[in-house]
């Protein structure tokens, strides 16, 4: 099987879906000749031209809102907001218009759009270019939120998102674009609402998503050295959430560590914890633990950035505490 970079997997998903359906098009800042700030749309303009790979002005509200309108008028736009941090400018259009139109109009319309963005720390570009804001969108009825951690998942899920009729926020991670992984040549898609069990184990469940899913896998390796057998679940899709996969694991291990790169306060993983509480309380042998980013604007200096964001060590540490082996 071929190994592809995460950014190539995304590019391939876009190209395949655009070949398959003439209604699909891409728009965003620097997506055409520049190929995307992180290379995820590189070369697409050569095959599809400037009508379908559209460079926009720096107008996040218009980018998101035009995607809403184009979707309601029969197209299937894949719009890009270059940094998760800029979603604030696009929020009204995406959340107040796009997310709500189907419900407000009595179910008589769909808004089949994908809004791709990327977040996360790791490049020392600080507070306004490093955020993880997925909780805000998980909180908005009408929006789906997808956050793949591997090239395989990125491609399969993006294809599904483009074919889906809901407004979907597709959250990439700036530190994952350069990560390589196996991607099949044959056509495949991954359904929404399905988590991936990356590693099976009996002692403790580590649940994470995006870059933290990879760090959770690393943590599982560290824990194995201590004789602790960790199960790792990569959520992949935050909304719809694969509650059943989570509950099945909790029933087995009785211990849960949740990891997320977003700030700790009101983090999305609190929702996961609540679902475990609601449906699997009797199976818990210890309180649910979370390892999240510090409640600070992401700092620039590398030492501060590393201190603010969860590491594999800290995830492993949290698991050891639950198992009583600190």
């Amino acid at each position, binding site marked *: 099987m071929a190994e592809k970079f995460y950014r190539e997997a995304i590019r391939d998903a876009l190209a395949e879906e655009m070949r398959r359906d003439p209604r699909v098009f891409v728009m965003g800042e620097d997506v055409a000749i520049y190929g995307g700030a992180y290379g995820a749309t590189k070369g697409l303009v050569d095959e599809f031209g400037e009508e379908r790979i559209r460079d926009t002005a720096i107008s996040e509200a218009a980018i998101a*809102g035009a995607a809403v309108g184009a979707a309601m008028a029969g*197209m299937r736009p894949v719009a890009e907001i270059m940094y998760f941090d800029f979603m604030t400018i696009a929020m009204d259009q995406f959340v*107040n*218009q796009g997310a709500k139109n189907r419900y407000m109009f*009595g179910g008589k319309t769909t808004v089949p759009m994908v809004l791709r963005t990327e977040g996360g720390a790791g490049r020392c570009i600080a507070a306004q270019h490093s955020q993880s804001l997925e909780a805000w969108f998980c909180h908005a009825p009408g929006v789906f939120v997808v956050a793949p951690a591997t090239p395989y998942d990125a491609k399969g899920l993006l294809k599904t998102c483009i074919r889906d*009729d809901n407004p979907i926020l597709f959250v990439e991670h700036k530190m994952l674009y350069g990560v390589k992984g196996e991607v099949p040549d044959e056509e495949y898609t991954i359904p929404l609402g399905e988590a991936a069990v990356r590693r099976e184990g009996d002692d403790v469940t580590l649940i994470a998503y995006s870059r933290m899913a990879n760090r959770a896998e690393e943590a599982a390796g560290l824990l194995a050295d201590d004789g602790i057998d960790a199960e790792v679940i990569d959520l992949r899709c935050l909304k719809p959430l694969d509650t059943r996969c989570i509950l099945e694991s909790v029933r087995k291990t009785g211990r849960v560590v949740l990891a997320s790169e977003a700030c700790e306060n009101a983090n999305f993983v609190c929702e996961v914890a609540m679902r475990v509480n609601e449906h699997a309380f009797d199976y818990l042998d210890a309180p649910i633990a979370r390892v999240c980013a510090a409640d600070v604007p992401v700092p620039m200096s590398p030492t501060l950035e590393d201190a603010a964001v969860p590491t594999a060590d800290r995830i492993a540490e949290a698991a050891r505490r639950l198992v009583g082996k600190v």
Partner: protein
Amino acid sequence: MAMLEAVKGKVGTKQEMAHLLKQMMCIRAFEDKVFELLARDILKGASHVYAGQEAVAVGAMSAITATDYITSTHRGHGHCLARGGDLKLMLAELCGKETGYCRGRGGSMHIADVSAGNLGATGIVGGNIPVGTGAGLAARMKNEGQVVLCFFGDGASNNGSFHESLNMAGVWRLPVVYICENNLYGMSVSVKRACAVQDIATRCSAYAMDGVVVDGQQVLDVQATVAAAVDRARKGDGPTLVEAKTYRYRGHSRSDPRAYRTKDEEATWHDRDPILLFRKLLADEGVMTAEEMDAVEAEVDREMAAAEKFTLEESEYPSGDAVLEDVYAGWIKGRYGLERL
């Protein structure tokens, strides 16, 4: 790109003129009924009444075809009716009934009929300007000759979404006619106090498009001016910013005592009631007699009464059990979170 002169309207056939008159009368009757039902607390929530602005919606809508798109505003009953909206389904929607256009989920500020090309009203000032722009982008990409009428008010023209959208349309030459209904007030704050320019259409020069100011109380002038802009859009000559000078007779919403407007100003604009102006024009031009026009009004009254009966006596409220439906396509909240339908 330049400021153009408004196009002077010409009287059409009796049938066409009667249709325009009837639409304006429908809107006025509907809005009067809405105001009454609000006072009786039968109609709940917010309703922003279009009375006084009828000529803008009716004139503009008569310049497009069934396959074109419109986007509307929180003051959108006039747009919806002029777009062919059914009085019954509209009143039912405003009263939150299951039989309404949006099954009671949207109400006054979110009324829509997407299948008829009305992409909806919105409660966010300026919220639909990017959406209308996107519909224009779709129209351009589909290349079937569709255009978009994107309505908004003077207040919205000061919102960031206006700037981003018109710039995008100007750069991409999108087939959108932006129609600013300048009724001189954004809620209680006058254009004099809120806008850096008083003729909002002059903002066109910032967006590589033509601008035109038209008397929003003259339905045929609005029709002709918008038709010229629609023609340019269909030919591929890009967007236009049309500003219709108009006035809302009621307050911003029902609870507004209108302390920010003078009685003199209101009287001046009542003298320019678009329905009365059109009646006078049709009489002067010998197109319709007073009796014929009265007959239209009587027909409107009958249809309005039927809509009231339909809404208040023949329509149910939605069941509370249905509250979770249609948030998503293909999924619904279940016991373990969202589940596939």
